[in-house]
């Protein structure tokens, strides 16, 4: 590529000569060509480093959860899998992250000797304060999503969209997009995600991912219930 580039510049120089321009100027171009090329490469390489490596790290701030939580440990204690704590209410709505009321039955007093447990009981349980969890899967408020339609009707697994969080022994670092305020889990962690490639459904949860899955499973990008395709199916 660089050779072609040089040739082009040379040709250009010769044309200038033919037009009666000074011979020196042509030599200057040829002499300066090495630097021009070098600077181009430096600029090109540096911005690739900035764009691919530095920017993604700058874009996200690393935030800690109020205290750590062991999903695997709790899974061993409950009978009904994820739905033991992340349950559907009687009216079919989804409860999401458990409220303090669900935890106090067991955690009224400090269980075990971890520091996280102490923080939980002393800072939240005894003060009756809800834990301000950072939710990895939180979508913008204008997005309508029904857990019942996907879990109850389409019989989808929690793992499909949420990954293997249920088997984790500690919570991952919450990476918050400084611009949008949303978790990096929505946008994808890996470089291939940024290139619109992904391996697992759970790797990224943006609008195109909804559409992709719907297209794959149902043959069309519509809601299964309403069979309607349009902004207001999901954006309410």
């Amino acid at each position, binding site marked *: 590529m660089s050779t072609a580039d040089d040739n082009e510049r040379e040709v250009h120089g010769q044309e200038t000569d033919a037009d009666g321009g000074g011979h020196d100027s042509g030599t200057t171009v040829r002499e*300066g060509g090495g630097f021009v090329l070098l600077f181009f490469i430096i600029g090109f390489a540096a911005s690739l480093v900035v764009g691919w490596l530095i920017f993604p790290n700058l874009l996200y701030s690393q935030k800690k959860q109020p205290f750590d939580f062991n999903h695997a440990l709790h899974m061993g204690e409950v009978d009904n899998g994820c739905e033991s704590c992340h349950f559907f209410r009687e009216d079919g709505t989804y*409860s999401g992250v458990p409220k303090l009321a669900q935890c106090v039955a067991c955690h009224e007093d400090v269980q075990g000797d971890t520091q996280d447990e102490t923080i939980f009981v002393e800072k939240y349980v005894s003060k009756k304060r809800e834990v301000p969890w950072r939710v990895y899967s939180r979508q*913008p408020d204008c997005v309508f999503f029904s857990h019942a339609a996907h879990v109850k009707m389409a019989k989808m697994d929690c793992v499909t969209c949420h990954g293997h969080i249920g088997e984790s022994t500690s919570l991952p670092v919450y990476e918050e997009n400084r611009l949008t305020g949303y978790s990096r889990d929505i946008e994808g962690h890996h470089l291939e995600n940024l290139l619109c490639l992904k391996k697992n459904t759970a790797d990224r949860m943006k609008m195109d991912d909804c559409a992709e899955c719907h297209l794959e499973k149902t043959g069309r990008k519509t809601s299964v219930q309403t069979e309607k395709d349009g902004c207001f199916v999901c954006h309410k």
Partner: protein
Amino acid sequence: MKIDRRCFLSLGIGAAAGITLSPLPWKITDDLSIWTQNWPWTPVPPDGKTINKKSACQLCPGGCGIAVRRIDKRVVKIEGLKGHPVNDGGLCTLGLSAAQLLYSPFRIQAPVKKVNGKWRKISWDDALATITTKMTELREEGKAHTVAGIIGGERGTVSMLWQRLFKAYGSPNLMRNTSMEDAYSLVLQKTQGNRVLPGFDFENADFVLSFGSGLIDGWGSPVRMFRALGDMKNRQAKFVQVEPRLSNTAAKADQWLPIIPGTEALLALGLIHVILSESLYQVRFVEQHCEGFDNFKKMVLETYPPEQVAKATGIKVETIKELGREFARAKNPLAVCGRGQGLTPGSFQETAAVHVLNALTGNLGEKGGVLAMPAGPEYEEWPEVEPDDVAAEALQQKRLDGAGGDEFPDAGDLPTRLAQVINTGKGDGIQLLFISGANPVYTLPDTKAVQKALAAIPFKVSFATHMDESAEMADLILPNHCFLERYEDVPVAAGLTSPIVNLAVPVVKPMYNTKHVGDSIIAIAQALGDEIADAFSWENYKTCLKETLGDEKWEKLTEEGYWVDEEFKPVPWKEGFKSAATKFIFPDPARLNHPPVSASGDAKQFPLTLIACDSMRLAGGAVGSPPFLIKITPDSVLLKEDLVVEINPATAADLGLKEGAQAVLATPKGSGRVRVHLDHGIRPGLVAMARGLGHGAHDKYLAGKGLNTNAFIGPVDDPDSGYDAAWGISASLAKA
């Protein structure tokens, strides 16, 4: 070889190329667009558990059941209660926006006392003690009767508690707001023998004749009326609207008769003339079940021939004759009155004439006719109050408003006369006034006079939930819970055809340091001691309510939200009436044979006539419109802060006014700047003004917008009953 400008250009181009091939620009563009949708200052309602509660709307007398949706502790939506006998899932604009009243920043948040013109928070104990001390002093001075009260309604336990307190304490001066129900109830008493309420069977009527009633503008029970009128269209029942203005109701009618305002009674009598002279009445009813028919017939035939009625009403002779015939020949005809939403009682003459029109067609107690409804559901009886000597003596005093006195023996309450009585210095001055569930400074006609009268009362106590006009004038406020925060029974009349009581329950815990007005009354009574305390032996209002309703009703009400008397059956006229003679007694001809109540004012100075008009988009009563209602009020009613009055283009041409022009509206009671809207749907010579605007208090969305009709229109005592019969007033409109 040297580094020059081109090298740096090359660096830039390289950087640009590199950046383009990196995710940076694309990611930033995407994130910025998401950022714009998620500005941190945009409020996002918190998610939570959905809870649905059944309760009752109390914002108008319509009696709708409501379903309140809460997310955790927050009310987010109010809808009509499905399956409710009144509204079955429907709800009006006011009910739908009621959550804005609950969360209004103008809620009164704690008991307050006015000190040097400023509100100061006080404790409940101090607030209640201030009242009881004052009441005890007045009783000791022999001035128990100078304690007065203005309350919202007659029925329901809160109203019963007020009546009980006044009886036990010893004051006859408890007044409640009046409406067309009072005029109807008086006519039913005079003709059928007991003071009941009217029920109108629109669902089975095949010819409805309305004398200015805004059947879809908020008359009766609004949601039921929407349904009933829609249903009438499907059944092809005929509907005739008699009204000087093309209101929404008139626009939906099969026939609209733009009558000269105030002459509705004459038209009714003219129609009676047609029916009598052509023998179109129900003969068996007249022969077997009536008294005083001959005198009545003679009076009508002599005084109200269609030719004369036509001249007075502005409706053609042929039209009157045809309408009379058509009405009498219909299978289930029904005539109703009560102007607009029926907020003003109206004259005895008009109500009686319309009732007789119904009676002559034989529709009383029949399918599609007028039914006599009990004044409320049957409650468990309270032990009779035994007024002590002081109270017994004080109760002998005449009522200040003249109701039940020599001049107006038939009237129950006449709050519209109160201002005039106080301002002319008649009777012992009121020393203490309670205002509960009412906003007299806004709703009583002749605002200036009412303000003057209230200013003359040394101590006023308000039980308001919001800082309304009357609360602003009070000296002490004991704030009641908002209707979504309290228990209360809501007996419904509103022209329904079966007795219904709803139960309002607290759908949320009280947000502020407020107290149920029922609890305040019980606390005051118990602090007054002796016989008064004995009459209030309940622990609190909830106990009182539960005991009064009885276990069976309470259980049904807490479960369903409403209770309907399934056993109620209307008594058809063939089975006789409750009067001593068990007959229908035709009204005394002298009470009908006089010119109708006219608009007051000098015709030269005020050549036009001002009428008030009601709409579903504005709350015209004690409850101020929430912001949503102001949003849906059209520019032809309210343009920014300016009230827009409606006039006929012919009137506008005479006055030299164009669409949107500014003008000064003046009546004998007041004047103000308005804008004009030209409309062919109003009789020339009239000025129509929307009710429900011109609040001086409430929030910034309502205060200072438009003008209050009551500041322009004064009360007119009906010569036969004393009830306010004003339907308008003389006015002038001039270019500003």
